[in-house]
């Protein structure tokens, strides 16, 4: 390299540009996985659209409603997964517990108070887990399993398998119908997704979650305040899970710990089917939205095609396994 006179720094790079390696393309050549994915989606859409009854209003509305509950939880789960903490086993229990807190608080102090109490409860419970995971680097799976046991245990202490009913005269009718043609629940789900997407793409906090998930040590070395970010991720995950519990309580005018059983499995399935990888560092809630809808569509189509319940479970499971198996090979370390 010559050492002759060089133009001032502002006019050029610090060094002359160097050729990148032999590959000129910025992205990897599209491999077969993307094609198979696209084909599967097209087939699914075709089957769905040609299934009699699918395009009917009641069917679509019911699909949108069912998707919303799991969907909210899945959005919360996405934040946890992106930050590299794999999943939380406690979100399903949180749904049930939040529903109970909502009913109890609303019975005592009115609807708005119930909302605030429920959100605060869900946020704090999760934030506590996030704090242990972020500040002490406690294992996220174990902490969430512990939280699961504690939430169920404490809830049982309060309600002993029972159901808590909304106070007589509580009128949640306004929240049970539709708004602008879509069910209220779905509207809430869309709002939750939009808020989460905003946080992830337009705030430094959101970017930090991606960095932490991609490489915790590199994030630390660069000065990211990791424990705050992880606590925040769990806090928001709790805040996004709460609407599921609240909406269920409104829908049935009652709350019990039976709500939310198994939701964490369906939620993480929606996250993975949407294309977010389990080890974190990348992903988006829009993908999770798509994943939740895909799973919902599969379930509705199976029902409408006349398959009995038991086959629905099996086939839905096979499809999820298939999608997961198709994730880019070598995404694990």
């Amino acid at each position, binding site marked *: 390299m010559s050492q002759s006179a060089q133009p001032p720094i502002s006019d050029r790079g610090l060094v002359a540009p160097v050729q990148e390696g032999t590959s000129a393309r910025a992205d990897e050549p599209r491999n077969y996985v993307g094609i198979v994915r696209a084909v599967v989606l097209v087939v699914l859409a075709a089957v769905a659209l040609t299934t009699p009854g699918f395009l009917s209003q009641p069917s679509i509305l019911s699909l949108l409603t069912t998707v919303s509950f799991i969907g909210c939880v899945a959005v919360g789960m996405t934040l946890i997964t992106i930050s590299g903490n*794999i*999943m939380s*086993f406690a979100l399903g229990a949180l749904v049930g517990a939040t529903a109970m807190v909502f009913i109890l608080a609303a019975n005592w102090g009115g609807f708005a108070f119930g909302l605030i109490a429920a959100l605060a409860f869900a946020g704090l419970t999760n934030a506590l887990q996030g704090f*242990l995971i972020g*500040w*002490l*680097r*406690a*294992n996220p*799976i*174990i*902490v969430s*399993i*512990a*939280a*699961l*046991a*504690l*939430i*169920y*245990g*404490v809830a*049982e*202490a309060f309600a*002993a398998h029972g159901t808590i009913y909304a106070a007589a005269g509580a009128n949640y009718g306004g929240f049970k119908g539709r708004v602008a043609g879509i069910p209220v629940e779905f509207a809430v789900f869309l709002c939750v997704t939009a808020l989460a997407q905003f946080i992830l793409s337009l705030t430094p906090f959101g970017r930090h979650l991606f960095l932490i998930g991609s490489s915790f040590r590199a994030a630390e070395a660069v000065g990211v305040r990791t424990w705050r970010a992880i606590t925040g991720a769990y806090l928001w995950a709790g805040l996004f899970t709460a609407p599921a519990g609240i909406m269920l309580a409104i829908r049935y005018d009652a709350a019990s710990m039976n709500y939310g*059983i*198994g939701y964490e*499995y369906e939620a*993480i*399935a929606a996250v*993975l089917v949407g294309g977010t*990888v*389990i*080890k974190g560092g990348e992903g988006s809630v829009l993908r999770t939205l798509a994943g939740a809808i895909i799973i919902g569509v599969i379930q509705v189509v199976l029902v409408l095609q006349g398959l*009995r*319940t*038991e*086959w629905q*479970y*099996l*086939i*839905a*499971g*096979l499809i*999820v*396994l*298939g999608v*997961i*198996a198709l*994730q880019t*090979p*070598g*995404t*694990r370390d």
Partner: protein
Amino acid sequence: MKRLLDDPHMRPLLILVACVAGLAFIDARDVLTLATAASSFETFATIGLVALGLGLTMMIREFDLSVVGMYSMAGCIAVVMGGTNAWLGVACALAAGLAGGLAQGWLIVRLRLGSVGVTLGGLLVLAGVAYVVTENRALPYENMEVALGLSAPIAGIFSIRSLVAIAVFAAAALVIGLTRYGRDIIAIGSDRRAAMTAGVNVNALVIGIFGFSGVCAALSGALLSYSLASASPAGLSDVIVPAAAAAILGGVSLAGGTGRPLGIAMGVLSLAVLRAGFNAVGAPPYVNEVAMGAILLIVAVLDGPYLTRRLHGLVRWRAH
């Protein structure tokens, strides 16, 4: 004393002793009875093998989420196929467990996918199979002789189910302790890359361990369904919490390489003793859940890699 506490192989034993001692302190008369011991061993039989299989996958830094589904499915298969011949039912359940476990292991290894994703899919599929096999209803198991025989008390404390579980634990302990495979498994858990460079057949062992985990969950589920004389596709879904808790208490850490079958057995016993003990003193059922959750949380906190530095940081901050 601290050195004893730090020894990873002693810790499960100490925890077990602490549990027994703690309960005895509360109410020795009701707790230290044969009935409590028998009940503990029944719980041991129910959760133990699942914890062993899950624990082994954790030892190699994986996690088998599908144990829950395997448990259900095996119970249903055993009941459906074992109407006339109980052995046939068990054999079918074990075959299914082995096949399911090996298939998942293969997917994880060959496709280089994370175990959480694959076993999540496996869980859903296995649960689905349970529904299909039972046609979505709870099935009774007619063979009452087998049902009663499995749970009949032997020597006051044991039963066939718990003896089977103990036998499997003993076999696993022998394999891990005395054979080359056991040494290789510990090596894989402790540093997988080093093991691979040294020439260990990592892929085969990973697949094998998932197969074993499947068989363990299947055996457990089959025997439980027989002894309850019924199988339901939706039941038995709450095994993952006690199984993971037992493994963690037993010294297995998700960082891999630690934990032994004997430790896991003691972890399971600790939980079983707690459950039976709480029952014996008449505590309401939620006490067990809360206690288990609290113990798990404490262990998770104590094992947190940043614990010491955070504590030191707090001490220094207070000193200023």
